[in-house]
């Protein structure tokens, strides 16, 4: 990109966004999108540790079948619920957009900040408030419904803790909407001169499509969650068959949000991967437009397929058939992306630093997750696989193998920009090896378990499932270890890392054309853009 005039050759440690104002108060009241991004980083990481604690608890419990279990059945259900709710609503959904997106989006556009900096800070505190309300259910009245809050169990039977969890999720949804809104307006209105829509980096296209989903789908979740609250407090009966309501309507409402939500989780990850693949192949991305538009296509199709979660809920055969066919269409734009990434690497000068390893890990694991999605989308097979460990393995391959891998890759990639320091590449690679191996050891056996018929969400199982479950538990500790190494590498990088140059990876997008770390307003002079984002060769 020919906009290098923004570079500050001398002393980038002089003045940057990290030392622009000091003390905890200057962080808590900051309007700088970069700082807000890092605050999300700290928050989401903490929540990830809590969610991970529950995960290890679940796996440890399942290492042994039958007598002397680690957790009481009731406690097991609560562990499972908090694990799911924390990971989905507080880690995977906000992870990439609110943290990496907030940090990167304005710089990549050549803007000084997001369109509404105050609203951005407000979204952060709304998120914190939501997380706190949800977490308070752990103290007052634990929830055992699973993260899906299926009625009538959640409304007619279980404790009132559901109200708190649902209210927390509602609040976090509000935060998600405001972040999405901010990103859309920023992308429309704050692009640097010359930054036309067909020159914005693919990360932005991904975040933009994600924001559209956030704005269109989250309100439906909001009303659904409010209705659960109303059901519990007023007994309105809209989902309660006793009063003439219909629990299947709940499922429609819930999945009308939550299926698009899986693309809120994965689209930003795909954006990160597009950046990593081109940067570490030193080659112009293959099929820029195809990747960009496929993000929008995925966002569009994602609204039409929610019924594939309800094949066995008693919906009509015709509906099942239609949802099944439309679901298969999601594969097309997804495959387009994958092929374009591979074509980009082909004959590129590929290097394998830690971020690239995570990108490759993403491609491998996400492919398995996506392909097993096609199995599940076939109604006949889903009758067999539904609510088994096959589904558990499927969504972990996409959500953890996909999104979390991309998040880790993105952290190591943009770390030098964030802190002006390098992480140890060896640390990053060890973390990758542990997570990647551990992940497959944990979740691959679960495909087999599911195919054998082990149901999900049960606190115990038949003796013939023991071996595979034990392998899975061992794997979970490898993953835990991998993230621990990752965390240590990051902390070590922050404290003791070598000084980073402005553009350590030789990447081309705008954020690498300013100093590391960037000044408070991102660029000393507003850049002018004259070419596409990945002008390698």
């Amino acid at each position, binding site marked *: 990109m020919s906009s290098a005039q923004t570079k500050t050759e001398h002393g980038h440690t002089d003045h940057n966004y990290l030392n622009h104002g000091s003390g905890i108060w200057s962080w808590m009241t900051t309007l700088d999108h970069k700082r807000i991004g890092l605050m999300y980083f700290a928050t989401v990481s903490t929540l990830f540790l809590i969610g991970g604690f529950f995960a290890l608890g679940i796996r440890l419990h399942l290492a042994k079948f039958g007598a002397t279990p680690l957790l009481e059945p009731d406690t097991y259900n609560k562990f499972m619920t908090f694990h799911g709710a924390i990971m989905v609503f507080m880690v995977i959904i906000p992870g990439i957009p609110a943290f990496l997106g907030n940090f990167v989006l304005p710089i990549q556009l050549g803007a000084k900040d997001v369109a509404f900096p105050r609203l951005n800070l407000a979204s952060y505190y709304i998120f914190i408030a939501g997380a706190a309300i949800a977490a308070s259910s752990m103290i007052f009245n634990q929830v055992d419904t699973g993260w899906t809050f299926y009625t009538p169990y959640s409304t007619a039977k279980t404790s009132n803790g559901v109200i708190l969890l649902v209210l927390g999720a509602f609040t976090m949804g509000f935060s998600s909407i405001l972040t999405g*809104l901010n990103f859309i307006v920023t992308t*429309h209105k704050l692009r640097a001169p010359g930054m036309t829509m067909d020159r914005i980096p693919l990360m932005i296209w991904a975040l933009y499509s994600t924001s559209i989903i956030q704005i*269109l789908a989250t*309100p439906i979740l*909001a009303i659904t969650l*409010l209705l659960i609250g109303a059901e519990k407090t*007023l007994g309105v009966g809209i989902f309660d068959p006793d*009063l*003439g*309501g219909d629990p299947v309507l709940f499922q429609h409402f819930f999945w009308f949000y939550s299926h698009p939500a899986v693309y809120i989780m994965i689209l930003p990850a795909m954006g990160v991967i597009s950046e990593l693949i081109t940067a570490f192949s030193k080659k112009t991305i293959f099929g820029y437009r195809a990747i960009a538009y496929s993000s929008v296509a995925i966002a569009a199709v994602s609204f039409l397929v929610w019924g594939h979660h309800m094949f066995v809920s008693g919906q009509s055969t015709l509906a099942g058939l239609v949802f099944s066919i439309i679901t298969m269409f999601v594969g097309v734009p997804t495959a387009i992306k994958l092929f374009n990434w591979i074509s980009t690497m082909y004959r590129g000068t590929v290097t394998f630093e830690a971020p690239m390893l995570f990108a490759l890990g993403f491609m491998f694991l996400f492919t398995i997750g996506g392909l097993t999605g096609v199995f599940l989308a076939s109604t006949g097979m889903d009758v067999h696989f539904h609510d088994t460990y096959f589904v558990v393995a499927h969504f972990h391959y996409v959500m953890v193998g996909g999104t979390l891998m991309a998040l880790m890759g993105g952290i190591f990639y943009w770390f030098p920009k964030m802190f002006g320091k390098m992480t140890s590449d060896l640390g990053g690679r060890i973390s990758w090896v542990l997570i990647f191996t551990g992940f497959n050891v944990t979740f691959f056996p679960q495909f087999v378990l599911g195919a054998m018929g082990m149901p999900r969400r049960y606190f115990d199982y038949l003796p013939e499932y023991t071996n595979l479950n034990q392998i899975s538990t061992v794997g979970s500790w490898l993953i835990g270890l991998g993230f621990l190494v990752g965390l240590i590498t990051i902390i070590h990088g922050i404290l003791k890392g070598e000084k980073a140059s402005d553009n350590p990876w030789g990447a081309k997008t705008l954020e690498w054309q300013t100093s590391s770390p960037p000044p408070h307003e991102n660029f000393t002079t507003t850049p002018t853009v004259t070419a596409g984002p990945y002008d390698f060769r």
Partner: protein
Amino acid sequence: MTSVSSSSEFHHQHHFKSADHQYASSKQGIWLFLCTEILMFGGLFVGYLIYHSLYPTVFKNGSETLDWKMGAVNTVVLLISSFTMAAAINYVQRGLHKIAAIMLALTIACAGAFMVIKYFEYSHKFHVGTVPGKFSLVDPSCAAGGKRAECESKISALLKNPAELEKNHVSAEEVTRLKAVISQPKWEMFYGFYFVMTGLHGVHVVAGAFLIFWVFIKTLRRKVGPEYYTPVEGVGLFWHVVDLVWIYLFPLLYLVG
């Protein structure tokens, strides 16, 4: 009112090129937010339509127990408030702060009037027992998992008691209507929707009133004026959406039987 001149009094934020640029961005943000509001109410409307088609008689009988006169008055109140709000924006744009503030105060007064009328409607329903499921039962233990079919509802208890009827201002005509309601199974469904929809709308009215109060203060302090009126216009748009939702709720709940 599409363009603003950047006068010396008002400085746009540092990351925008000009006041116009900031104004256009803010306006886009507000519209996007209003889309989410409409989608959220949309979910309720979808639910309403589904259950209306499942239980047409329940919704017809239920609708006839609502006081359409109060609903109509409230519709007029909100329409007036939308007018005063629009006028307030216009006066702020023309720099007529005093009359703008009066218009905003009138809008808040309308919001208050709306809520007072709603309060009378709600409290009457609580007296006669046309309330959402859980509260419709005389024996509260029924709501907590007892067999609903064997529980008596508040309405039927009331209808048996002439003294109570008189005390609660229930006319003979209303008695017929109430009897028609409870003759239908699942009659609570209508009131479930009634309270959730009008309740959520009411929360929006209150939130709107606070927002209008906020721009009212801004107007008094002359923080807004011809060169900068984005908050007034944004709050105004929100208020119009609140009004619009009621314009749909009123016929759907009160008139369409």
